């Protein structure tokens, strides 16, 4: 399977924040959800892919091309959707086409007009009056009109109502149906990822915590609940994000270790949301135990 995106050993340090050895790849024809709490490095990674941030070390290839050297060739086939519009508010859709058209060799005006119509976007209003969902659809229309083979969306669903989010998922599912095109979208609304994504990458503190198929992720972890005294010996070390309270505890663990548990403990499948929460809790616990020792 050919990878449309490949990131190897990406490092990028800012004041007080760093991406550390980030590596993951996305095959052609699939959707990857890119998740992690705020500040985990999702946007920095995306900015690095787009060569908007200068990377310290590592290699990023898009369509097999180098993200730094071949950035112009890459952008020809790349569609980008950010959570806010990067175009002037007082233009209408026709004037926006005039702005974008010169940048792309393969611009297709018919396709643009057809998309605008299909997405139900008004042609007489300036985009400043567009709702958030309309702006997002406009940017997708632009991407589709220059025949982008890879779409990167940064937090496309934040601030969208459920109907608009559902529409977006529809558009993305249709987009990748031909098996040639891919989507990378970052989000913290994990139910969107849970449903539609083929692959998931979880970033945590600038590092890749998980990358792989979504099914392996969601089948790979369970949430354990019960009374603390029922935890068999040797199991507690395997618990992630242990949270004890007066009447019991809850924690996450790898499904493969679940057979070590006694019957008194309840387990259920972990959602991506829960996985993110327990990763963060584990982190806090580790930090707390370090300060305790000092």
């Amino acid at each position: 399977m050919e990878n449309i995106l490949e990131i190897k050993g990406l490092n990028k340090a800012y004041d007080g924040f760093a991406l550390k050895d980030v590596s993951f790849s996305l095959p052609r024809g699939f959707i990857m959800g890119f998740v992690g709490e705020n500040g985990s490095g999702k946007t920095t990674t995306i900015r690095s892919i787009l060569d908007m941030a200068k990377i310290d070390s590592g290699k990023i290839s898009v369509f097999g091309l180098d993200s730094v050297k071949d950035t112009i060739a890459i952008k020809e086939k790349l569609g980008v959707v950010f959570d806010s519009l990067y175009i002037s508010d007082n233009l209408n859709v026709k004037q926006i086409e005039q702005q974008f058209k010169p940048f792309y060799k393969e611009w297709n005006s018919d396709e643009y007009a057809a998309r605008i119509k299909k997405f139900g976007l008004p042609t007489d209003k300036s985009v400043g009056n567009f709702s958030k969902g309309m702006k997002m659809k406009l940017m997708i229309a632009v991407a589709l009109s220059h025949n982008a083979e890879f779409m990167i969306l940064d937090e496309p669903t934040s601030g969208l109502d459920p109907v608009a989010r559902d529409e977006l998922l529809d558009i993305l599912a249709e987009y990748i149906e031909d098996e040639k095109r891919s989507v990378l979208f970052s989000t913290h609304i994990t139910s969107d990822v849970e449903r539609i994504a083929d692959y998931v990458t979880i970033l945590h503190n600038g590092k890749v915590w998980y990358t792989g198929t979504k099914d392996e992720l969601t089948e790979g972890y369970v949430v354990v609940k019960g009374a603390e005294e029922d935890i068999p010996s040797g199991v507690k070390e395997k618990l992630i994000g242990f949270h004890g309270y007066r009447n019991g505890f809850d924690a996450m663990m790898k499904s493969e270790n679940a057979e070590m548990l006694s019957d008194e403990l309840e387990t259920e499948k972990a959602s991506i949301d829960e996985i993110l929460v327990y990763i963060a809790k584990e982190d806090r616990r580790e930090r707390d135990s370090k300060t305790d020792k000092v």
Partner: protein
Amino acid sequence: MKIIIKNKSDVPIYEQIEEQIKTQILEGKTEENEQLPSIRQLARDLKISAITTTRVYNDLAEEGYIISVTGKGFFVAPRNNDLLRERMLCEMEEAMEKVIVTGRNAGLSDKEIIGALKKFMEE
């Protein structure tokens, strides 16, 4: 073919779809050699991962419910297919086991259970 996904169910999505397709094939609600939607189509229609639908079709093909024709797609296996027949017999045996256990739990003798079964068949 009718497929419904319950998002709030604990049963994984791939299992939900597999069960529904199996049931419809076993109950004869599908035609022999009926073409199934492609992996990508099904993923798009249900708004789920193509990896999940790939797994569904691979599992069903392995179990003999459907057959894969290279370059053409997936089809409901012919009824005379040995694997499918075996599955159906298996399903029947499971159902009969349930009948016997439930009957005995209700205090029926084996003769009475057989009698009840015969009566049902005549209806």
